[in-house]
């Protein structure tokens, strides 16, 4: 399936781009993160499970168990600091 992946703030800067489209067979947001981590630097550091990385599926906060659908949008970002 086709998944649009978006990165924000410090994670976007570390990875070097704000979005990409990935064709994949994985079914959850957590598995997608593992797939990206396996790419090595800079993904390995930016999305490390040692860091507070928040995730969203179709613009709602989710956890790693959330199920991907074709043409969905997944986002990875650091803790938010608005207001």
């Amino acid at each position, binding site marked *: 399936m086709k998944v649009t992946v978006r990165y*924000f703030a410090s994670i976007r800067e570390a990875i070097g781009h704000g979005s990409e489209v990935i064709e994949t067979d994985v079914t959850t947001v957590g598995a997608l993160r593992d797939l990206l981590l396996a790419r090595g630097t800079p993904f390995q550091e930016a999305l490390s499970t040692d860091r507070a990385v928040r995730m*969203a599926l179709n613009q709602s906060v989710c956890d790693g168990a959330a199920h991907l659908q074709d043409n969905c949008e997944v986002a990875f970002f*650091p*803790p938010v*600091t608005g207001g």
Partner: protein
Amino acid sequence: MRLSVSIQSEDFDVSHELAQLRANDARVGAVCSFVGTVRERNEGTAVSSMELEHYPGMTEKSITAMMEEAAKRFDIYGARVIHRIGLLQPQDQIVLVAVTSAHRGMSFQACEFLMDYLKTQAPFWKKEVTTEGARWVDARVSDDKALARWGITVKNV
């Protein structure tokens, strides 16, 4: 119920927004507002400017959801949220949260609830330019605790 959110780079006029929020609604007896501004110092370092990034679409969606939650919890007539993005300078206004109700208690509470929620749930990120270079602002554990007071457990940090 008047609920509206704007994400914008332009400044806002608080008096105008408050007047709009309660216009033609004679039930209103209380208008409570909060304005967040850019401090000249953060964690001991001088801040020369601040850049605000957000997640277009999710920002509006998350703030609308929190206003709907506030409307369920508190007896309010309207709420207005404005959050600025882009480049800001010390003393600039960043955020407005305003709420109307019949009596002050509900609008005070709803206003604080909305700010606590926004701090930990709305996808905004601040980057400060300081004398020591540019840095992303760290999220605070105290903000998660502030939201927990309302019975909402989240882990932003």
